[in-house]
């Protein structure tokens, strides 16, 4: 049975409560791109330990006692995967497929996805956080950085939208 999506305001309200609970228990907000950063560091450390030690950037995150993947965000993202799987299972949305705009082939879609992901990875490190970490949690804690990042992401998104409308619209 393919149930429709949850009412957006209810979902927003529940997400707000989850975020509030996160602040209440751990004192920090949600996040996502940090987990990928930890995996990158773990991979680089494994592949060429020597390179990782030398570079100023990697060495910050590598210490003998703590395993690079043993961070809050990695566990949180594992939870996200599990939670999404659960919700997808209940709503019957589990199947392997490529979703793409009507006017492009799935091959272009996949290429765009990789390019988009690359951009997002780069941007999230530069902006110290992604939409859920810097923007959403930042806005909740009323930090200036949160609002700047949110406006930059969605503002620039609206500017680019026109040029890439072929990707999404009929």
């Amino acid at each position, binding site marked *: 049975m393919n149930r429709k999506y949850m009412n957006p*305001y*209810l979902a927003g309200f529940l997400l707000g409560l989850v975020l509030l609970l996160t602040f209440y228990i751990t004192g920090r*907000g949600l996040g996502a791109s*940090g987990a990928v950063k930890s995996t990158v560091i773990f991979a680089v450390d494994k592949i060429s330990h020597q390179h990782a030690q030398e570079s100023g950037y990697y060495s910050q995150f590598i210490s003998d006692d703590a395993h690079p993947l043993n961070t809050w965000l990695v566990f949180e993202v594992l939870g996200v995967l599990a939670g999404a799987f659960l919700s997808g299972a209940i709503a019957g949305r589990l199947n392997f497929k490529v979703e793409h705009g009507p006017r492009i082939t799935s091959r272009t879609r996949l290429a765009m996805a990789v390019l988009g992901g690359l951009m997002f990875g780069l941007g*999230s490190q530069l902006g110290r956080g992604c939409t859920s970490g810097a923007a959403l949690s930042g806005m909740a804690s009323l930090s200036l950085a949160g609002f700047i990042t949110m406006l930059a992401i969605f503002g620039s998104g609206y500017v680019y939208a026109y040029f890439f409308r072929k990707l999404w619209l009929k």
Partner: protein
Amino acid sequence: MKQPKILIIIAAAFALMIITGLLGSRDREMDYALSPQQTLETALSSESEVFPEELAGMLENDKIKCQPVDVRNPYDYLEGHIGPAINIPANTLLQKDNLRLLKKFDRDSVLMVLYGNDQSQADYPWLILKQVGINNIKVLTGGFAYYITRPQDVDDMPGIPGHLPEEPRYDFGKLMESIGGEKQPRAPDAYEMVIPVRRKKENKVDGGC
């Protein structure tokens, strides 16, 4: 669509939780009746003291409602205290029943006079009780030690500690010169003024994404 109904229920529950939290927190911890600025004005006000003569006069004249409060420890209190004084050791002043008693005196406009061994022992509690909202309260000049000697004429006893404590009892400049120094004490030679700079509020918790 049944989902807005769930939204309404949870939103209402959330609002209720917050309101109960707010009400609960109001009476839990005792609040200050005076802001820091008002407390400063009270601290600067000069009529916070009662001279032994006035106290003695008030105690004899039963028309004036006056209640001395001894803030020393019970042992000193038993050794000797001012006539009708009740004993509430300083660090128990804010306990529930003591505070209720003091507030009752305040409501019946009974003038409470705090005293300790010396004036400064009663001065702190006076300022704290003022901040918590007790107005009709004063401090006995000189404290119990000075009260016992109870000179007939207050001004002629400069030597007793606690008598007008804030007055300079010596002309410091002249005293310095009499010992062979300049008027001002010599500062250590390389003594540059220590000026601390405003501390930046640093972030306590790490986080972000």
